[in-house]
């Protein structure tokens, strides 16, 4: 098993769900596919989807919902099955 970090290229505010009161994109321990959205980063009122580049299990989030993020910050860790 290898661990992969999901990184945000942008600073801003991280959201785990597509909108207030909506279920999260992914929960910890859930299986994810390559290219799947794990959250949104809002910067200057623009929303960007943050996607995992590898398939596997989303082991943990490194940032709280509504948490501030800096460019290059780790959003989550995905464990693949190799």
């Amino acid at each position, binding site marked *: 098993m290898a661990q992969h970090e999901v990184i945000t290229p*942008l600073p801003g505010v991280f959201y785990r769900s597509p*909108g207030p009161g*909506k279920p999260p994109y992914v929960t910890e321990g859930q299986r994810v596919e390559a290219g799947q959205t794990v959250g949104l980063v809002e910067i*200057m*009122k623009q929303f960007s989807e943050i996607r995992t580049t590898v398939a596997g299990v989303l082991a943990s989030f490194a940032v709280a919902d509504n948490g501030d993020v800096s460019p290059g910050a780790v959003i989550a860790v995905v464990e693949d099955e190799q």
Partner: protein
Amino acid sequence: MRRLFVANRGEIAARIIRTAHEMGMETVLAISEVDRDSFAAQMSDLVTVIGPAQARQSYLNRQALVEAVAASAADAVHPGYGFLSEDAEFACQIIDLGVTWVGPSPEAIELMGNKAAARAAAQRAGVPIVAGSNGAVGPDEDIHAVAEAVGYPLLIKASAGGGGRGIRLVRSPEQLDEEAHLAAAEAGAAFGDSAIYLERFISNARHVEVQILGDGTDVVHLFDRDCSLQRRQQKVVEETPAPDIPDDLRRRMLDSAVELARSCRYQGAGTVEFLYDAERGDICFIEMNTRLQVEHPITEMVTGIDLVREQLLIAGGDKLRYRQADIITSGHAIEMRINAENPELEFMPSPGTLTHVQWPGGPGVRTDAGVVTGSAISPYYDSLIAKIIVWDSDRPHAISRAIRALSETHIEGVDTTTKYLQSVLHHPVVRAARHHTKFLESSAAELLQEAP
């Protein structure tokens, strides 16, 4: 009115404070914790911290703002644009404090803020409307069925919207779910309400709008603006008068905007937005914005009327100081929005600190900025840092002056759209006024080439 509370930030806060000072008023500016050193905070007589950086906890925090207004001993509140400017509940709470709300009545905000009611009011006033869903699409409704009835391509819009936030273009059913999710997220973040509705998308349309002023009884228009140069539904360049519109259509648009405002006993400044379909020679009502617009300065340049001053006078109980015949436009004005974004990286926002700022000068140039050298461009708010507005006797001269003004604009420390704006104004399609609302996106690659 002696003390004015400004419930906004950035360039529009500075803009409002300037007129307030000219009228002998003292200002109290609401600021978030990261805006203590902002340009507007420096200009304001007093400031009051309303919460942390994130807008939901500060500039969108109704309760914090109402408490700050109550404690400020202000006579009036100016909400600017965006944030809580079209929040009827906020307006109500300000009025309940016994403080003057600089804007239309909560009833008018609510009527126009409810898109279905606004469409019905427009129809009653004899204004043609665009096909769309009747009001917000409910959580239990089948959005695909509603979309089929409206027809593709369509736009998803925020019910509580305005300012282009939360708008998504959907060309086919496969895109609908994902775009609806994103539109709802943007709507929730920008307005605290994630309700969305659908509207038919008219391709090659121009976005034309009418500025109106009302005193609760009488209404006048201050002519039109063309805001067709947009990216992702965000206006980039605006001009007045809207070029190349047949006289009879323009007349009908101006008259119906006045009629709509009169029908809701409109008080203050407002804007009625239309789509102009040049191919079919048709105009349709889109929505009415019950606030000052970002692009209001171009109207000020051609009419000589300070819209913020008129807003404050009307809010203070004055009747309109102008009859329609008194309002005359002269020449042509263009506004260019300087955003902290990198056009070469798909307009990625570029927060940072401005190490050097130099604005343009000379004849016919006005700069409405929210920053000075040393200002921080925060990731928490809109990317607009300044508006360069130019006036000249006609459109070709105004375009030349606009390009010249941009060439004098120097901003260091963050990426900006300054060079991109020059490319836009150099483009033959823009010079010939053959542009439409999708022109900037369809010519994106071409516009990234450096202007000659």
